[in-house]
């Protein structure tokens, strides 16, 4: 733990100068509309200076170069006839090159966001009054260099380190045998009851692991719960039907279920034909699962994982077929439908908690405790943010609004 804080301190020391220079960014000049200028033949004075440098203030891919200049003496004062500046960029010294942009009068800074990283560029700038340009000022060469750390995302890193440290700590504590309290999750017992009822009725259990791909963490949580459910059905010799919408999820589900049947010592009861790939197409899948519900009459329908609009199609058909239904998802938009149409619903984080809880492995329970403490940290930070806003420390809140 102490080492983590040392690292944090070092990182904080590194951010301080970067944070200071961030303020300069905010000072963008205000462009005022200028009165129409009469045509004349006298060119305005040229810009009084031109400097170019790699854009450093925000970490970038090396695709940005910052250009600054001094206003022409006739911009805003003198003859007061400058209507704008023309900035050009070239690959060789002395060439005018391509026009990058036309910039309004009164502006002294431009960021070229279209450079190739590592390529050296020359810039030149003229002022003009609508009819004639001034003399040209030159600068360069300079090249954009890629940064190794995205400082604008520093706050993300800090919170990640804090979160991971807490998870690691509680996992270690739990691993040493400390008893961790975990509150009852209502939907969990319902899963076992539902499977039990299906067994009594001699009807199958239907387990839908959502239509998410296997890279979706909800699907992974679902496969965890599937392993638990498969162990119960293996023990009671209840058929377990697992329809899937993704081929990889199907093959993972096959492994999970086969493994569970083997562990319980009933490998012969495993029926590979019950782990089915139906369709990658959302409603083709939903339609086919509805068919299974009506024709194979499962007595328990478990929906765990990532669901989209098909949630209610499944849950309403399942209700009509008379099955006990337990759902679990972190898809916020679908929760209302599962909550209304199913007997029990694992909401949001409960899905992940359930998967950790079922395993009863202390290592996994440590993660739950870590998440809880992260909630406390988040609430504390919101409170701190409210106070900071009240006393005018807007930069504290801005620190969280990264991009």
């Amino acid at each position: 733990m102490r080492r983590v804080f040392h690292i944090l301190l070092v990182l904080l020391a590194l951010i301080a100068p970067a944070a200071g220079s961030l303020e300069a960014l905010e000072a963008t000049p205000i462009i005022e509309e200028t009165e129409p200028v009469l045509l004349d033949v006298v060119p305005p004075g040229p810009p009084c200076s031109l400097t170019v440098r790699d854009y450093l203030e925000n970490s970038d891919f090396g695709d940005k170069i910052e250009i600054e200049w001094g206003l022409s003496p006739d911009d805003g004062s003198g003859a007061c006839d400058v209507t704008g500046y023309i900035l050009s960029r070239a690959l060789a010294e002395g060439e005018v090159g391509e026009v990058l942009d036309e910039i309004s009068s009164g502006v002294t800074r431009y960021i070229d966001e279209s450079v190739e990283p590592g390529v050296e560029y020359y810039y030149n700038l003229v002022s003009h009054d609508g009819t004639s340009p001034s003399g040209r000022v030159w600068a360069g060469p300079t090249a954009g260099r890629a940064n190794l750390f995205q400082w604008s995302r520093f706050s993300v890193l800090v919170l990640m380190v804090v979160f991971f440290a807490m998870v690691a700590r509680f996992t270690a504590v739990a691993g040493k045998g400390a008893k961790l309290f975990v509150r009852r999750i209502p939907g969990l017992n319902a899963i076992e009851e539902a499977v039990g009822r299906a067994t009594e009725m001699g009807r199958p259990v239907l387990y839908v692991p959502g239509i998410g791909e296997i890279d979706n963490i909800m699907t992974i949580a679902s496969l965890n719960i599937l392993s638990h459910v498969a162990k119960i059905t293996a023990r009671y010799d209840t058929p377990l039907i697992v329809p899937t919408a993704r081929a990889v999820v199907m093959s993972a589900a096959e492994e999970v279920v086969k493994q569970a049947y083997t562990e319980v010592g009933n490998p012969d009861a495993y029926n590979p034909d019950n782990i089915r790939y139906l369709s990658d197409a959302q409603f083709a899948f939903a339609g086919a699962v509805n068919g299974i519900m009506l024709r194979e009459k499962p007595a328990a329908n478990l929906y765990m994982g990532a669901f989209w609009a098909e949630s209610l199609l499944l849950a309403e058909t399942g209700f009509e077929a008379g099955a006990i239904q337990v759902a679990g998802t972190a898809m916020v938009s679908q929760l209302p439908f599962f909550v209304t149409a199913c007997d029990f619903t694992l909401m949001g984080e409960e899905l992940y908690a359930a998967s950790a809880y079922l395993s009863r492995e202390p290592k996994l329970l440590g993660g739950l405790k870590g998440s809880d403490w992260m909630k406390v940290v988040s609430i504390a930070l919101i409170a701190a943010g409210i106070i900071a806003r009240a006393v005018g420390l807007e930069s504290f809140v801005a620190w969280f609004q990264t991009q």
Partner: protein
Amino acid sequence: MATIIWTTIGAILTLSVYSFLYKDNPFYKFAEHLVVGISAGYYLVIYYFNFIQPNVVAPVFLLRIGNEAIGLGSSMWWLALIPGILGLLLYTRFFPKFGWVGRWSLGIYVGGYAGLGLSPIMQARVLNQIGANALPLTSITNVFLIVGLLGTLTYFFFSMKHKGVLGVLARVGIVFLMVGFGASFGYTVMSRVSLLIGRVSFLLHDWLHLI
């Protein structure tokens, strides 16, 4: 004439799906099996032509697609072999002895995407939310918003007993959750009805010309 035939087929298929609302029947079963078969063929072809051919087959076998020579002249063509092999490894599961090798590709895929997801989630769902909720407590609505968030978050405390202050907050959280669920349920009705209006006007307008 051709349009009439195809519209009629479309209408019959539409009605077949709706017949499911009455009860399961041969028309629905036909429509269901049709859609599963078409999508299986469709995705097999689309996945091949959109991912496998341009990214693996073309660079490795130096294929030309149209006038474009993909992979020809690229010194990095062998990189395309890696995903190709990873994809093939998935099929080792049919050989019990080597089945474990298939886990390599699955491991790369899942591990990669797990890592990919972590930081953006921390940023968008935690960090930015902290910023968005650090609101000045000057209006009732802001207080309301923050109390609701606090309650909902408390409901999701797993390792602490919901007693005392935590119990009250968790209960507030449940009330907010229920109001939120009711509201988004009600909010969604309109878009679902729009879908039905769309299908009904296909039947009444395009097919029967009644409106």
